[in-house]
Structure formats: C-alpha cells, structure tokens
C-alpha cells in the first residue's frame, strides 16, 4: 500500500476494514452486488411469498410450506445490487489552507477502505477529474489510497456545486461523500440536491480552518479571496464578527437541512481535527459507520 501510511496508520486501516458504511436509504446500482434492494431478485434474503403459477421456477417453491399446508407457495427473494461510494473532494484553492484538503483526503481514504471492504464500488472525484474510477474489492485498496495520496495539489477555481453536478452526471447510485469547506459563491444545497436526484445519498463534510470558524477582527482592510483573487473592502465595526458568525451558522444550518431533507448526513469539522478520532469515534457515534 504505497502512500497509505501517509494518510492513515495501519492500525486505523485495520479497524476500518471491519467497519461498514451505513446508508440512510437504499440506493444501489443496477449491477449485481451484495446490497439488498426493495426489488425482487435472487438474493439470499426472502422478501415475500406468493401463490405458485404455472411456469414459475420450481427452485423457488417452498417445499416446507407445501408439505405443511398442501398448497404450493413460491418464495420471493430480494435483489442484491452493488452500491457506489463516490468520494468528492473539493481541491479548490480555498481548501489548501490550514490542512483542510489533507484532512479531506485522509477521511476519504478511511471511507474508501471501509467501502472497499464492504464491497462498494469506490470512486474519487475532484475538480481535476476522476482520480479513481469506480473500483471494487480489497485488491483496489492500494490503488485507492495511492490515488488519494498522489493527488495533484489544490488549485482549481470551480465551485463545489459544479463538482457535485459532475458527479451526479456520471449515473452512479449509492453514497456521495462531499468533502469541502462550502465557502464559495455557489449554492451548496443545489449541489447536494443534484446528487440526491441522481440517486446518490448526499453526505456533506464541511471542513473549516480555525481562522474561518472564529476569525480575528480584520480591521479596515481589503480582503483578498485566495481562490478567485477577488477583493472585498471591509470596514470593521463592533458587529462585524457577530454577523460573520451568524453567516457561518446559517451556512451550516443550510447544509444540514439540505442533507437531512435528501436522506443524507452533515458533519462540520475543524481542519485540525484528528482523522482517526473522526473516523473511529465521531462517524461511528453518528451512525455513518458501523
């Protein structure tokens, strides 16, 4: 596992190998897999019974019921389909500061390991493109970790809702975990909405630096957007920081509501958070992993 050690220690990877992603809904791909669906199929789980009709496959006849009741009944099995885990990492310039993008990659690595062990189809998508095409099985773990650790440095200037739309356009169903600070001029709720429409359960992870959560008074200064280079003249006053924190709370509330109403999840993290602690404790406590 070249490069994996730089993302997560082996002991963490070992523990994540036993964890499974807990989707809120059942959004699976058409392809045959291990995830039971609501539709009928040939899976191991019995979904229902119905009267036998001429031409039915006798392999699905419940002989025990026939012997007991004297009337043939046919077992209906659940269909088991595979599920995509799309890891969307915002690698715009705003994520380059304070280790936000690094934390995103390490969390994505952890989820990728858990997903590959859970027979998910895992792919990684960034503004630069698809770092990792959908892969499946434990054999792809090294490839996934390698792709995450060797990713090009941040530098894109695209909005996160465009990246979400790009992911939604790929026609995959399952879970889409979006790692971003959601600090751009786009509509983050729209991005999550596009993912949900496309059949991807939107899980949003917002990573913010300490200076973004609780900034120092800027004074009378021209603030420059690290991503776009845009300038904003700010004249400090006593209420400016209060209004900033209120705006941050509104954004967090918007993301949480957007994820919740689309059967998704939301988690806000500080950029200096311990990824192992987040993966093994916080996500498990919140039911993201089991």
């Amino acid at each position, binding site marked *: 596992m070249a490069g994996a050690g730089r993302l997560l220690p082996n002991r963490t990877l070992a523990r994540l190998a036993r964890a499974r992603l807990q989707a809120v809904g059942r959004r699976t791909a058409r392809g045959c897999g291990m995830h039971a669906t609501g539709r009928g199929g040939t899976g191991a789980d019995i979904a229902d019974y119905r009267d036998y009709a001429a031409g039915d496959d006798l392999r699905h006849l419940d002989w025990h019921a026939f012997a007991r009741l004297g009337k043939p009944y046919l077992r209906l099995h659940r269909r088991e389909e595979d599920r995509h885990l799309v890891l969307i990492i915002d690698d715009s310039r705003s994520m380059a500061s*304070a280790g936000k993008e690094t934390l995103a990659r390490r969390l994505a690595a952890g989820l990728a390991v858990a997903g590959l062990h859970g027979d998910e189809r895992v792919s990684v998508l960034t503004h630069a493109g698809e770092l990792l095409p959908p892969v499946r099985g434990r054999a792809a773990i090294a490839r996934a970790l390698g792709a995450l650790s060797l990713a090009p440095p941040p530098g894109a200037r695209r909005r996160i809702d465009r990246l979400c739309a790009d992911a939604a356009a790929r026609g995959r169903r399952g879970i889409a975990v979006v790692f971003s600070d959601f600090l751009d001029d786009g509509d983050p709720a729209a991005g999550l909405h596009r993912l949900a429409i496309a059949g991807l359960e939107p899980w949003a992870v917002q990573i913010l630096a300490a200076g973004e959560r609780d900034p120092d008074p800027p*004074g009378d200064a*021209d*603030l420059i*957007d690290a991503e776009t280079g845009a300038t904003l003249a700010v004249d400090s006053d006593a*209420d400016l920081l209060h209004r*900033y924190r209120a705006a941050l709370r509104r954004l967090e509330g918007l993301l949480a509501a957007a994820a919740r109403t689309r059967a998704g999840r939301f988690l806000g993290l500080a950029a200096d958070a311990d990824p192992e602690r987040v993966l093994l404790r916080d996500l498990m406590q919140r039911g993201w992993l089991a």
Partner: protein
Amino acid sequence: MSLGWSSPAWLALAALAFPVLALFLLRPRRPRREVAALALWRASLHDPRAGHPAQRLRRHLSLWLALASLAAITLAAARPHRNLGHGSTADRLVLAIDTSASMGARLADGGTPLAAAVAAARARIAALRPGECLCLVAVGARARRLGGFSDDPRTLGDALAGLVPEAGATDLAAACRLLAAIAHEGPCRGSVLFTDGNLPATVDAEAPMPIELALLPTGGANLGITACAARRTAPGRWRVQVRIEASAATAMGGQLRIEQDGDLLAERPLAPVPVAEVAIEVAAADDRLLALRLQPYGPDCLTIDDEAWLALPKQRQLRVRVASGLDAWRRALAAQEDVIVADDDANADLVISDRSADLEDAAPLALGDGVVPVSLADLVEVGAGASAVADVRHGEPVLAHLALADLAIGERVAWAQAADEAAAERRGFRILVHGDSGPLLVAAQAAGGGERLFLLFASRRSTLPWRLAFPLLAGNLVDRTRALRGLDQTVCLPTGLLTLSGCAPGAEVRLRGPGGTVMSAQTDTDGVAAGLAADRPGPWILEDGFRHRHLGIGLLDPGETRLERRQSLQLRETTVPAAGAAASHAAGPLWPWLAAAAIALLAFDWWWMHRRW
C-alpha cells in the same frame, strides 16, 4: 427667523468636495489580507444589520466626515447669521459704548470694562451682515459720534481703537439726544449700549429708538476723593476739607496726603468706612496748588479719583468803596483786617453807597444804604414813621451772628397796597430782614453774577451804627466779598464743562490742562467764559490776558467712585432691562459654532482612523 450670509462668495469652497472625493478614491491602499474565501465576509456585509443606514454610513465614515468638515468650514467662511425678524426695518444699528470713568476700572483679569466693551463691539462688527450698517457712539461725560454709519469693518474697528475712559459720569441724556439726532437722519433698528451699569438712577429723556442694555463686568474695591475744598483760617493757614467715599463692593482704609510743590504738608490715615469726611489744617503758601493724593490700603481698581487739586488764591487786601457821607460804614470797614477803604475805587470788591447808580458797579457785592431798587419801588413804600425788626434770616452769610431785635428805625418801611413777599420774590428779591410793616433788607442777584443788598432804610436814621451788630455786619460783608472773590476759600472743580467768571469782558481766554490740552473761549460782556471742557483731573491754568489763574480739577463724582451697578436703565417713561454683553451678538454670527463643529469633526475623524476595536 431666516438665515443670511455675510460672505456668500465663500460658499464656492464647496467645490473642494471634488478634490476630497478624488483623494478618497485615490487614497493609499488599505492593508490587504488574504482569506480562504470571501463568501462569509460578503454574507456578513450583506447582512440586514450591515445594511442599516448607520452601518452603511460607517462604511465610508471617513469620507462623510471629511465632507461634513468641508461643509462646516465652507459655511463658517460664508459667515451665516440669523435674521431676527427686523427685516422690515432699516439695517442700521447704533453701538453706544460707555466711556465714563468707571469703564476704566481695573478688573480681576487685568482688563477694563471699556476693553470688554470694545471687544464686544468688535465681535458685533465681525458679524456684520450684508447691507447692515453700524454707527459707533461714545457716551461719557458727553456723547459723541465716532463716525457715520458704515459697513466697513476696518473703518469701524479704527474708530474703536482710540477709545479711552473719560473723567466723568455717563451723560445719558446727551446720549439720548444724540440718538434722536441719528434717528432723525434715517430709520434705525435700534441701539446697543455697552456699559458696566454705572448709570444714573433715572434719565430725564426718552429713548428715540429701541435700546438694548449690554452689561459688562465692573470693577471691585475702590476708594476715591469725591469732594474737597479749603478755607483760609489765618494768613498762610488753610483748612482743607475732603470727602472720601468707597465703592459699594468693599470699604477699605487708606492714607490721605496733602502736598504742595512736592513737599508733604500733612498726612492722615483713613478708617475703612464707606464715607469719610476729613478736615486737615495745613500751612500752605498762597497762589499755589495743593495736591491731595489718596493711597488706599489694598487693590484700588480706579486710580483717576485718587487725586484732586486745590488752587489756593493769591492773598491780597480787599478794596472797598464807600460813598461819601457814609462815615459809619467807612469806620466800621476800615477796622477790618486787610481792607482798603476808598471813595472812588473803580475796581472795588465791595461797594457801599446810598446812590443807586453806584450799585451798578461790577463789584461782586454791593450794599445800598437807604436805596430802594427801581424794580421794587412800586411794592415798597418808605416814609415817615418807625419800623422794627420782626424776623432775621440768620442762615444768610451776611447776617451771621447779628442781633437786631431792639434796632430802632426812624423810617417806616411798608409794603405797598396789595404787595407782599411773594410779589418781591417773583421779581428776584429775597427778604433777608422782615420789618413789622415790610421788608428792611433785601437781596438780589446782579447781572454779572454778584450779589446786591438793599437796606431799604437809611442806616443813619436808625440805631444800627451804634449797635454791636454794625461792625459784625461790616465783617460779614467783607467775608462774603472775599468768598465771592474767592480770596478766602477755594474748591476743587469737577471735570466737565466749566463756567468761569471774573475774566476780562469780551476777551479771549485760554485754558491749559495736563497733557498739553489747550482750549480757548470768548468771555461775554460780564467777563464769564463758558463751554470750557476740563476733561481730565489735574492742575489747569486759565490765561486771561496777562493774568494766569490756577484751577484745581478732580473727578469728584460719587457715582463713579462708588462703582454702583444698575441692572436696568430707567428712562422717563420706559425701563430698559439688562441683557448681558453676550446677548447682542448671540443672535448674530453662527460661524464660530460651525468652525467648532468642523474642528470636532476632524478630531472625531482622527480618532476613528486610529481607534482599536
């Protein structure tokens, strides 16, 4: 109330707003700070609370403060003023400045009320509005214009520059007459009188225009000479009487010194009482000046009343002309000291005669013995019979110490039919001695200022020459003549217009005063010179041909010395309350407030730029 502009051209300064805007736009870059994203900052700036007008204003507060400062400076330069509703009246105002002696009192801050008045007047001049004209008037011992109506601040300021306190009280009646004359020239909005409140209790005049009384601060403790005179008690000895008064604020003691030619003749300490009467006898040379100097024990805010002068007359013998046949008078007068009795002295000081023509002499005192004045001839009848003395006016100087009760008179002096004392008084006669039937001795004023006495009965037909009262009467006549001639007593004259008698008739006299003051006047046929203005205390000299006469002049005004302060001006029918010195210009200029606002705005801008949140 409307707003006017004194210098509207300065409103063009508002054009500086464009350079201010340009400088604001080109101002040095503010500190640049890179942030990960502007979204939250932008959201906080777009917060409804940030959109509050106060927040929007605060965003460019420095610009707004600069523009507000510029606006205040522009408005101040244009010198706005409030029009107080006098628009219908002519914009002509009279500024009257009290220049009486009390206006020169030293204040606690070292200034004088006159300096404060000039400053207040200058402030009013500085607030001149377009079309407004001021006329300056000085009101001291006399009222005078300092120029015509003018709107030129420099001209008006120059007129104020020469104002000094005068040695005299405020003549408000003259001021009212002058204001009436000014009002007669054209409509005036009113007048402002800048004064320390040392004004007469009442002024017998009417205000020809509205008067505003602007009271200024007045001096504090003061001690001064308010009257003084001297009387010869013996050859070479004079009894000097001085009245000294203190201001209402504080009574303080002092020391009075009497000097002659620099030599100290007497010195007397004074107790701290409001009024002190001092009598000091000194040995002083005649025909010289006595200087009376007061040295208060403490701060004395007015020094002009600390000195007074007495001109001691030249000692000479009294010249008496007695008509022939009046031997009793001749003997009685010859017995008096320093008296020369002659029959035909044309320049006699005292004339005693039994002929009416002799009484028309220019002598200051004349006595007609058995003479009935022509103007009294129809009121009094003198005939055979007898008369007795019924009443004597012992208060008259010539009748002092006389006992006439048993005087026998061999003539009957009686009032004519329907004549009485009132009729005689209407004709200018005073009855000095009443007889049982009519007047016995009457007095009248002579045309030249002297006195004329008429003994209506002939003394030789009475027992008067044999009575003790006769030499006493002769002595009283001599003393009275000396008094009228000013040979035995002298007084210090108050400053102001002098009327001097005893000069050569129809001649030009010249009056020289301290500081090189010279003025001249023409005497009338009686030798009276009038209209000479002795406007400062000190020794003066009257030049009458080849004769020189010393005059002692002092302030001698109790009102000025007491520094009384009145809160209103009582005219004949109106009372003008005090408004305070600031009131006259509080309603005028606004530019000081605007200038102060500009400074405050700039200071606030500086603080805003350097504040720390």
